[in-house]
């Protein structure tokens, strides 16, 4: 009956291959309302919190900055602006440890807060956006530094600009939140459903009126109801549908969610816009609403602080740049010594060595896992070729073969087995009875391939440089010989000094001309290689 109904309502859901059921652990943190985290003494705001180029600092060390003031300007098209998340003094722009799998440091703006939290002068709210040119609105979103808040952190303004020849038919709003433990989107949907929809409405306008599908995993009934309730209040019902999708990791993966809601597969190596689809996270939608309707840049986000090592797991509204250690302290500190701190969820997040790193825009979760939650998997055993990994791989890869070739460092073969279609979801490693850290092998292999390509490029460049140098040396040698010959000739020609002088001058001019021509040719060649 339900099947017939769904057919009639045309809201059929599709499935993707594989996927796994993991204990969702959401009840740990979704029981309390979002709490605003108090202002910390110091904010450490990384200048790159997004995919793309590092933003260029525009505030100077020593400046007094206000909340919402631009600290760093987006540099290039794929980049995002960075704002001060509270008022105070900009005391340094220097490298600091940031949340990154490599554990490396990166350039950060450090603000000593003054406790006032004074807002800078903000741009006018845009309420009549439907009458405005989309470019203007996109410019506002770009200014506000909105990026994908689901974890990918791709600049939202870029995603909302698919180009004139790419008609977008469907806008998908990702409220799946399929990673275990994380509940920040859940709480956001429960508490700010209206703002999310307001943001979605703006996106709808920017993308040329596509239909809208909002996908929410069915383990979040409150969020689903809140969104439905909010939708009923809007004028968006004609083109918007909210769908409850079965809880199955990784249904919130972009390509997986698109498949579930539309039945379409994003072609390999392509972005969803290729098939007329854009996917945005609910958090990004709310941030777009803030930016456009309030003129407020993205200076805070909701972070889930959870795991059984945390005394009181919950969701906090946190200013970007707040140290993770403050968050943990605010949640009552540790209940027991954590075995692992993870930034992000347990399936795709990365381990962090310590909590002295700042919250960034894509940081949706801080996990402090106990020994019981993240036991030592023990030494990896040999692959028994059981195929469990292939059964669960949402990309329909053969993880056992990828592993085999990655381990043998056979970079061509791993690519034959479509290494780059791997979304690093971790399903394979999760079910592997031999406890092989499969994803680690794939990341390693990807890095190796990238490094090899980089090497190739460099080698090619070096070869061209070498050739150019060789040509230059030969030319110089020729010129030197020519000069010698002329000198000799003029000496041979006897004491007619003026004559010699004249000849020498001529020769010098000739040589200079030759040099100039050669330089021009070399420059032309270099330009060519640059283009290539």
């Amino acid at each position: 009956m339900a099947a017939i109904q769904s057919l009639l309502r045309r809201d059929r859901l599709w499935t993707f291959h594989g996927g796994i059921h993991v204990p969702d652990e959401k009840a740990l943190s979704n029981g309390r309302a979002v709490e605003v985290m108090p202002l910390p003494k110091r904010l450490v705001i990384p200048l790159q919190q997004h995919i793309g180029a590092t933003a260029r600092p525009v505030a100077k060390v020593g400046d007094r900055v206000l909340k919402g003031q631009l600290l760093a300007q987006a540099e290039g098209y794929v980049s995002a602006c960075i704002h001060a998340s509270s008022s105070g003094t900009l005391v340094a722009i220097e490298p600091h440890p940031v949340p990154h799998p490599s554990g490396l440091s990166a350039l950060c703006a450090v603000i000593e807060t003054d406790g006032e939290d004074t807002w800078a002068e903000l741009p006018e709210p845009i309420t009549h956006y439907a009458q405005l040119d989309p470019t203007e609105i996109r410019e506002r979103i770009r200014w506000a530094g909105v990026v994908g808040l689901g974890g990918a952190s791709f600049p939202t303004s870029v995603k909302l600009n698919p180009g004139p020849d790419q008609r977008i038919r469907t806008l998908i709003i990702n409220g799946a939140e399929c990673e275990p433990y994380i509940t920040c989107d859940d709480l956001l949907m429960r508490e700010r459903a209206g703002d999310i929809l307001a943001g979605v409405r703006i996106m709808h306008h920017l993308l040329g009126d596509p239909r809208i599908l909002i996908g929410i995993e069915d383990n979040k009934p409150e969020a689903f109801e809140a969104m439905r309730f909010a939708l009923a209040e809007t004028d968006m019902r004609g083109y918007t549908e909210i769908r409850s999708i079965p809880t199955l990791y990784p249904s919130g993966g972009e390509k997986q969610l698109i498949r579930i809601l539309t039945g379409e597969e994003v072609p390999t190596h392509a972005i969803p816009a290729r098939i007329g689809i854009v996917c945005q996270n609910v958090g990004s939608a709310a941030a777009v609403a803030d930016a456009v309707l309030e003129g407020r840049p993205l200076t805070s986000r909701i972070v889930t602080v959870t795991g059984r090592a945390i005394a009181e797991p919950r969701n906090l509204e946190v200013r970007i740049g707040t140290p993770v250690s403050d968050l943990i302290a605010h949640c009552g500190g540790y209940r027991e010594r954590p075995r692992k701190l993870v930034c992000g969820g347990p399936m795709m997040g990365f381990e962090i060595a310590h909590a002295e790193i700042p919250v960034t825009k894509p940081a949706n979760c801080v996990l402090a896992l106990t020994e019981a939650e993240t036991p030592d998997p023990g030494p990896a055993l040999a692959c028994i070729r059981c195929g469990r990994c292939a059964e669960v791989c949402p990309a329909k890869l053969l993880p056992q073969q990828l592993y085999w070739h990655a381990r043998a460092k056979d970079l061509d073969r791993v690519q034959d087995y479509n290494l780059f279609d791997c979304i690093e979801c971790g399903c394979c490693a999760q079910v592997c009875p031999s406890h092989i850290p499969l994803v680690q092998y794939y990341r390693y292999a990807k890095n190796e391939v990238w490094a090899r390509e980089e090497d190739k490029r460099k080698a090619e460049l070096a070869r061209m440089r070498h050739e150019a140098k060789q040509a230059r040396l030969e030319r110089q040698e020729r010129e030197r010989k020519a000069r010698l010959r002329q000198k000799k000739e003029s000496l041979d020609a006897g004491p007619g000094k003026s004559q010699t002088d004249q000849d020498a001058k001529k020769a010098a001019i000739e040589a200079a001309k030759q040099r100039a021509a050669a330089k021009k040719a070399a420059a032309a060649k270099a330009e060519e290689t640059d283009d290539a």
Partner: protein
Amino acid sequence: MSATLVSSPHGSRPNRVDRVMQEVLLALVPGVAAMIWFFGWGVLINITLAVAVALIAEAAVMRVRRRPIGPAIGDYSAVVTAVLFAISVPPTLPWWMTLLGMLFAIVLVKQLYGGIGYNPFNPAMAAYVFLLVSYPVAMTTWLAPDMLAEHAVSFTESLRLIFGGALPSGVEWDAISAATPLDEMRGKLDQGMPIAEIRLSPLWGDFGGRGWEWVANGFLLGGVYLLWRRIITWHIPVSMLAALAVAAGAIWLIDPTTHPFPAFHLFSGAAILGAFFIATDPVSACTTKTGQLIFGASIGLLVFVIRTWGGYPDAVAFAVLLMNIVAPTIDHYTQPRVFGHSGNRANP
């Protein structure tokens, strides 16, 4: 906190090779119990002996290869190999043959190729075939099922039989042994006897041989358990049994007087055991789903062909080994279409 940053995923992982193998052993219990019930203590003695030899051999090889012994033995894979071997051979097999077989399985077939995960052949089946070819008589002399035997072999008599080759006093081989149903069927068919007449013999139960069919039922129960626990998937067992049944059914329909009906094939010999426990050995089987269907169906067909026209009465071991050879090739040509790729992948 750990010193090195480990890649995701971070949660606890429910599966482990040792647990998988333990489940397999558990699933073997009903079938093995039925075997002991019908064929006496020899079955249990063989299992014990084979397991002991397998573990010692595995430990010794690990020692020689300077690898840690604990994990190799602790994964129970050698135990599974030993049990599968021991229940495939006659319950009266001389002890040194079991020893030889297990050494062959563990040292040559498994460890010389690099240990678990690297062996292209199923070790238990390779050892079985090795012994069958070398000692055909000992390997085909089966005890009669309990209810048909004139003399029930006791525990001590089994021990003396296996370790000393001594028959119980005053008892001839004929009194305790009987042809296996497959042997019986073949022999009589070769003599030109029609099926209806063959089946008059007290050897026969409802589908296969008396006793034997219950052993098969036991393994079937274990197989269903493995499916339920998702230790194996349905692809190999179902395709293998279906192919066997379809082939047997087709020829039976054509000529029911000289061909046994399909259920006989399914419930005789090692068909059920092979389908759920041997052909599904992950290391030596196909790993792609389509590949597994082809792999299973080919084994089923081969079993039928060898049983019907080949030189050996049962064929599961041969069929599995033959398909082990081509499994990598099948895998190669049956790779699934990767998400987001159009058509079947063309490259290797």
